[in-house]
């Protein structure tokens, strides 16, 4: 049950890659990364989930809170390369329709 977070700051965009598992135990660590970006409101957040193998509802809650904060400042949340099992979570909960999100497919990114 581990998470590895990489952050890359660009002008106007914060890029974050998450690997491992995002659950009730690892979510606080990611929150420390997301929260300042969302609260600051000067850059959009682009999150790559290619290496993320598992996410539970606490993880999903963190995305919801971050999305709300970003939207308040007219900033965007982009979630890319989502593994099918995690994509199903975004779909069932209806959250998929609230953000820009793409599913991971062998070697290429597919926009849906």
């Amino acid at each position, binding site marked *: 049950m581990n998470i590895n977070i990489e952050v890359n700051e660009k002008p106007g965009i914060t890029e974050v890659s998450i690997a491992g598992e995002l659950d009730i135990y690892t979510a606080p660590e990611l*929150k420390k990364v997301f929260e300042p970006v969302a609260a600051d409101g000067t850059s959009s957040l682009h999150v790559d989930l290619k290496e993320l193998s598992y996410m*539970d*509802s*606490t993880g*999903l*809650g*963190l995305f*919801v*809170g971050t999305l*709300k*904060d970003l939207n308040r400042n007219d900033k965007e949340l982009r979630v890319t390369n989502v593994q099918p*099992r995690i994509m199903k979570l975004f779909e*069932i*909960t*209806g*959250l998929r*329709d*609230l953000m820009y999100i793409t599913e991971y497919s062998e070697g290429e990114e597919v926009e849906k």
Partner: protein
Amino acid sequence: MSYIDSLTNDYEEILRLYLYENDVDAAIAKCHTFSRNVIEIDTSPEEIVSLHTQMLNHMHVNDVDLVKQSLEILEEVMISFGFTYRDYRAMLDKLDLHDQELDIAASLQETMLKPTIPVADTMQIGAISIPAGKVSGDYFNFIHHNSHKISFAVADVIGKGIPAAIAMTMLKFGMELAHLNKGPAKALETLNNLVEKNVNKNMFITMFYGVYDYRNGKLTFSSAGHEPGYIYRYEEDVFEEIDTKGLVLGVRQDNTYFEKTVDLKENDMIFIFTDGVSELRKHDETFIDMNDIFQMLREMKDNHPQDTVQYLYETLTRMQNNLRKDDLTMLIIKNAKNLY
């Protein structure tokens, strides 16, 4: 050389630096590392004092002034022990407080939030909800209306403890207030606005809301981002997914929900559950297959739904990886029209 031996050597080195080379800074710096290491391996303070005495003998330190000086090193190590001890106490106090909070939430769930299962001749109900820990993030509720209808809901609240228990209380009273004639979709819309205003930004609730007429077997339902439910068709021996694809509660004000209606024939069953069931992790870390659950339901199709959910719960708990435990909730409503 064992780790203990190397720590003993470290201590000798610290004393040598301090007593004979007067290199105070180096000695103190090493002293901090040493303290950290001995605390990590659960060394007791008396073991350190005994190590100190041994070292003085071993190094033939007999001069009273040197012995006195050496005690300054011992004091330095003991200070680290003191800090660790205070941290430990503070953590215990925190745990205590946390425990009390969980107790309050758990007793709220035990008393105020416990639903009454409706009883009628033409339907049978089975319901089970077992938390993984002390308190549950799952919630289910029934309301028996006088007009041969029941409202029921299964919900998963993100987060636990008092905030979750408060959210559940809100759901309970929201359901009581939702007007029956307006249907499940309108009920979810009311609940959504209530929840959105009152929960923190990282929290949301998934909910399946149904109204079942036990006189004619008509089910009207709506879902707020909840796991799809199923209807088991007894005669055809098939499972039909029931879902309306709506957004979870608490994310967006004035969200619209949709509803559908289906008819249950004799012995058909409605099966609603939380993701503790569908996302169950097995001992080998793989996820459960819904077909396995369907198979269990088939085996139990002629039993009372309460026995079925009990059987499912016991089987699922055996399959479950204990490190991955989640709250489990299942609800079955069976059209038992012609049993009587």
